[in-house]
Each structure stands twice: as C-alpha cells, then as structure tokens.
C-alpha cells in the first residue's frame, strides 16, 4: 500500500513494486516479488538505455517485465512497476513490522 501511495498518490496494491504471493488458504510460505537490483540488467537488454537513470525510475514499460528472468516486476494498467528503492529510503521497510525487509548494500555495487 505505501509503495503505491508514495509513488503514485493512490493506494492500489496492483501499482506496487513490492508484492507478496501468499498461500492464504494453505500452509505455504509467503513469497516476495521485488526487483532484485541485478548488476546484469537483462530487463534493459536490447535498449540503448542509461542503466543508472532507469534504475531510479518507478514506472517502466511492460516489455521490460517480460525480460526479467525472475518475473519480479508486476504489470498493471500499461506499466511495469520497478522498485527504485525510493531513492535510498524505502517506504516499505518502514512499515514492515515483522522486519522481513532490509536494505543491504552489495559489495562492489555502484551508487544508487
């Protein structure tokens, strides 16, 4: 909810970059779906895109979601929703009370 609210100004879980697949009628674990911030951005393959700039955007073209090997980007209403880490201060982290989310710097990764 906070992801969509922060980025788009409305509450709509369909417009959130962080999603949880839950087995609410069964015993399975919840599975998070979220951009992995890959070093090797398969999502941008074939585009002449500035990776640094694209990483900082929230709304992406749906075609990029199709290229993602983790199927991590939700697509809704003409957009793919890409986690831009809220510019370094992820809103989802602040409301996740079981502390299931954390922000970690990967050794050797470039600036956000």
């Amino acid at each position, binding site marked *: 909810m906070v992801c969509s*609210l922060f980025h788009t*100004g*409305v*509450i*709509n*879980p369909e417009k959130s970059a962080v999603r949880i697949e839950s087995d609410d*009628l069964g015993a399975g674990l919840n599975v998070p779906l979220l951009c992995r911030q890959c070093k090797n951005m398969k999502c941008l393959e074939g585009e002449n895109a500035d990776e640094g700039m694209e990483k900082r955007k929230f709304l992406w073209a749906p075609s990029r979601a199709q290229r993602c090997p983790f199927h991590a980007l939700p697509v809704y209403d003409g957009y793919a929703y890409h986690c831009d880490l809220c510019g370094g201060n992820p809103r989802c982290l602040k409301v996740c*009370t079981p502390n299931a989310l954390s922000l970690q710097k990967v050794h050797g990764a470039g600036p956000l």
Partner: protein
Amino acid sequence: MTRKIAFIDLEKGTVRIEPISVELRRKFLGGRGMNMHLLSGSYTPELDPLSPRNPLIFGAGLLTGTLGFGSRMNITAKSPESGGLGDSNMGGHFGSELVKAGLSHLVITGRSPVPVYLSIKNGAFEIRDARGLKGLDTVETQKRIRRELGDHRVQIACIGPAGENLVRFACIRSGLKSAAGRTGMGAVMGSKNLKAVAVRGTLDIEIPNPGAYLTYYQSRLNRLMQSKWAAALGRQGTPLLFRNSNLMGFLSIQNNQYTAAGERVAGLYAEALEAYSTGMVACSGCPVHCRHRFAIKNGRYAGTMGEGPEYASMGSMGSKLGNYDIETVLFASELCNRYGMDTISGGTYIAWAMELYQRGIIDRTVTGMSLEWGNGEALIELLRRIAYREGFGNILAEGSFARPMLGESSREYLLEIKNLPIEMTDERLPKSFALGLATSTRGACHMRSRPSIDVLGLPEEVLNRVYGGPVSNRLSSYSGKARMVWWHERINAVADALGICRFQTVFSSPHALHYPHFAKLIAHATGLHLTPKEIKTIGERICTLERWMLARSGLTRRDDTLPKRYFDEPVPEGPAKGEVVSRKDFDGMLDEYYRLHGWDRNGVPRTGTLKKLGLIHENQS
C-alpha cells in the same frame, strides 16, 4: 468516498448500484453504522429472519482498505439465532477487496430459486450457478471458486454445510479463519440460496494528501510498535488472555458451574499453543499480525492445519466443556470453521446439553451419545451432527429455540441473554463485563463493550481521565462501571463503523487509538473532516439507533438481564469464590447506564435523544 452501495435482489436477479452521500457518511461513517441505518427500515417484529425479505447487509468500514489500523467489516441482518438484531464483525481480507472493487456496502434481498454465488469484479456483478459447490466446506468452496474464476486472488465470503442446513448459529467465513461468527448470518445466507460472494478489486483508492497521510501513519505506527500489548498480541495472539482469566477466576468452566480450573487450564495457555504455531499472519494491512497459523503434526489429529484459534474459540471448545486437551480443541475449532458454524454459540449450546446430561434432565435416549464433560470424541461427533442436523444435532442446531424440545427444566441451564448464548468467560466477578453482556444490542455479546482494561487495575486517576468520571479500579466493584460500559459501547461502535480492529483501540490499552486519532485518520484517508466530538456523537447515534430498533420491536429493561446463575449462584470455589451479581446493584448500574445514553428507565431512547442525534426521522416501514 467514491465507494458505492449495491442492492442485489436474488429473486429477480437484479443489481442496482448507487453512490453513498457525504451526509450519510458524516452521520454513520460506514461499516456497522451504515449497516444499521440500512437495516432499520426493514427491522420489524414480523420480519422472519429466514425469509427472503430479511436483508443481508455487508458493510466495509470507512477506513477499510486504507492505511487505517485493521481492515474490518460487518455483516448485519435480523438474526435467526436470537430472533433479534444480527450483526457480526469480520477481519481478514474480504472487506479490503470489496473496497478495492469500488464498493463498501452490499444489501442482498430475496431468495434465489437455485443455489448461486455472486461474483464481483471492480463493481461489475455476475450471479453464477453454485450447484456444483453444494455441500463443500468453507475452505474447499473458496478454493473451488478461485479455480473456476481463474484467479487465486479473489476473496470469498461463503457458507459451509451448517449454513446450507440453516443451523441457526451458522456463520459466514472467509480465508482459513475469518468469520462473521455470531447471530447466525450464515443461516440467513443459506436461506437465500446464496453459497458465496466472491470479489476481486484492482481500483485506485484516491487519497487527498498522500505525503501527509504517510507521515501521520508512520508516526502512529512507530508508537504502536513500541507498545507492550502490540508485541504480546503479535507474538501470542489472544490466547494470552487465558492465564489471567483463570488466575482471577472469570473463565466459564463446565457451563459456568465453576470459574477457574487451576493447573488443568495450562494445557490451553498461549505457551501451549505456541508448540503448534507455524507463524503469525495479519489481516489486510495490519501491522500487529496477531493470528496464529497452526499445524498438528502427530497424534490422532495429525494433518490438521488452520489459522487461529482465538481465545474465545479455545475457551468455547475447551474450558467451557471441561476439555483441556489442546489438540482436541484445535481440531474442534477447525471443524466449526470448516462446517461454517460459530464456535462460541456452539460451545455454549453443547455446554448446556452437557449440564443437562450431568443432571439427568436428558439422557442417552435423547442425546444418542454419552455427553460427559471433557469427552472430546463426543464433542467432535456432536459438532458433525449439528452441522448436518442429524439426531440430537438437529435439536441443538435450533440453539435457544430447542428449549421447548428439551423441556421446561432445561430452560435455566442455557445461559443466554436475549436468546444469544454467553461466551467463554464468567461475568460474576467482573461487574463491568456483566453489565456489558446484559445490555449488548445483539444479545450476550462480549464485544459490544467488553471494557477489558478493567482487569488491569489501573490507577483511578487514569480511569477517571479516560472515562470522564469516577470509576473504581476494582474488577469486582459496581462503582462507575456503568460509565465504563457506556464509554466502550460508543467507541466500539465507531471502531466498527471505521473498520478499525478492536485490538487497536482502548480495548488493549488506555494509550491506544481513540477519537482524536480517528479524526486524523478519517481526514487523511477520505478528506472528510469530523471533530473528535462529532465522531463520539456518531458512536452514540449508532448505539441509540440499534437500541431504538430493538425497542420498537418490544425490547424493555426486562431484557437487559443476566442468566439466573449470575444472580442466584455465588461462585462456589476458586479465586472468585463467593462472587455473584446483586440484583439491586445491577439495577443501579442499569439506571446509570440508561441515563448516560439518554434513554428512559426502561432503556427506550428518549425523544429528545433521538432528535439530538438526528434519528427521529429514520424511516419506519
């Protein structure tokens, strides 16, 4: 604020969608408040709860689906269980999904000629054939509908065999555990030939000032997560209440013949449940995550899994029935969930039968089975017979209407108020709980008020400040408890109209959410500006409207009473030994309670009160 209301006629197969005016929102908010407004026109003494004319009303809270705290909803109709006001509150995910589909309320009337289910997608309705779902339990029904609709994110509220068989205390269920449990809303749904309501919503919820809302929510959230009670609930759930009620002596043991059971109850304590817990889950958007998931891996019930149970279900299937084996309790509670019938009412009707059996008022020729206290096998078989209306189960399925069938001498052993049976506490010690039960508009309900902070023994300065008047901090005292009950009734009505979970309010702690916070949350989430005082008045309005509906159907002071056992039988032993409710002191509390509400000595709302609350022009049919 753009959320709409849908009027569905299952006989004609029509759906009419209308907006909800701002004026109505300002008067009743949403959820329970709006439901009562919608029911009030149809609620008459002649209305048969199982007839097509009884409107089954679903209402999501005004803040449900937003960053409020908890996303709850109410389901309301005239009750087949009590013959009075039917109303039940439910958590989980269904309410939020309804809101995401652009709707906040559904009013369902008529009886479908064939079994059907409603499918709602973003405000578009379809009435679908449910013959293939007949007989399925409440979890299988949901799985099957999701497969049929090809969408595993559909949220479904449905009935099981108990609702289909019009068991008077059948409930409506969603997910693994969420239930509109009490007052038999499942039977109303069954009487309409409506197996389920399925909803999927992907619409935007517009927020006036997102930045301000996020900031305010974050500040309340941070405060919440520092509180002890949120941490305790989040880790242990409501079963943490067992220890205290056993130690202080306000548990119902063996149909309230006793009020504590010493070490035996430890088998049901939160610590005992933790051994079966596979984690905690939350209702939609709630940060407290107070619901257990459990699994039984070994023993006779191996393979049983589910969500919950709450303290009330464990008590109703457990301590009330002299049953302290947690695995039997978990299994029995899960059975009730699958069959789609209320654990609390079910437990009390069975306790009634067990006491009758104990006293020889009924025997095996009537029951078809041995019904000794603590007999787990009998409990499980009896639950099945009730759901399928077999043998003695067919009698108990009638709830308090079974009294004529079991004879005059059976009457006094069913502990009920306004035909709704009491729950798994015993209220002879905690006088505020007793008054709350007696005055609850849906009958013996522990959630209409339940001033649970009364057990904490807080300093009287704190209590006086919270309640705006003198209140004793002794649980067994009558002094000031009318004020306490009145105060909680009002705020609970508001919480239910907003969709905020009871656990997030003063139910849990005097420092939790109340009127000033409600005002801010409402403004942030909807743009509606109401002062704390106006919100308090809405609470009063909802309580008085419910009361007025009942009074117009003949309710008087005589009906605000307690089981005979509470007045005439002092607690025989244990920590609350000797506690009993004095009729004279009870009457004193009742007088003060009516005065605070602006009702007359008979508990009927005064004309002046009705006018002040803007209810005097409520339509009557």
